[in-house]
């Protein structure tokens, strides 16, 4: 019984993995690709992990515990990674695909870039001051 459930979970997880990777190849821009890859591949791999864990129920508890821990960890970190990469993609100037109908992030991205530039300027200023004081000492 448990083994049947595990096999089904395993198979569905594999199907989601493949669909996610097909999405990675077929969809038009970084953001859509991130959607397909994070959602489908994360859920698919989580299902595979849970199925692996079910094989350990009764007799091989470490397998079960490690799989569940890995699944929880994956569910918590995969969205964070995708979010970080997409944000940095937008800030570094990757444009949305032509089919896109709306873009509310332009203004905010400008603010982020301005903050970065300001920080860079401050560092530059401090370095110049240090150089000046060293010259004055010499």
């Amino acid at each position: 019984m448990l083994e049947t459930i595990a096999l089904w979970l395993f198979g569905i997880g594999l199907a989601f993995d493949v669909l996610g990777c097909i999405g990675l190849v077929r969809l038009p821009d970084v953001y859509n690709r991130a959607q397909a890859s994070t959602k489908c591949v994360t859920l698919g791999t989580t299902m595979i992990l849970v199925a692996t864990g079910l094989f350990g129920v009764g007799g091989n508890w470490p397998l079960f515990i490690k799989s569940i821990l890995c699944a929880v960890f994956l569910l918590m970190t995969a969205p964070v990674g995708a979010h970080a990469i997409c944000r940095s993609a937008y800030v570094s100037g990757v444009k949305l695909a032509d089919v896109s109908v709306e873009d509310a992030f332009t203004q905010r991205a400008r603010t982020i870039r301005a903050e970065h530039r300001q920080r860079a300027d401050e560092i530059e200023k401090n370095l110049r001051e240090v150089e000046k004081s060293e010259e004055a000492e010499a």
Partner: protein
Amino acid sequence: MSPTFLEVAMYVLIFSSLLCLDRIGRGPTAPDRAIAIDTLGTIMIGFCCIMALWPTPTDSPSASPFMDYYMTVAIAWAIISFIGSLALAKYLEGRCYDA
């Protein structure tokens, strides 16, 4: 767990990772490649699961029918792949401000 099923599963995952490699090779921008590498890392965890369920050789001293130490590899892989994609994202964000 039948070895045939595991073999089929392995071919399916190999196909997925080939699709990822295609995106890594073609991806027009760096973030495309970063996403594909992240996805490849997640698929590797699937490989670890398959290896963990692979039946141990009959002459092995281990009592367990499975090679469950591969799950430890999976956890470590998940952590390192997460840190790697965060580092890539941080690097990409500071790379260019006008495009």
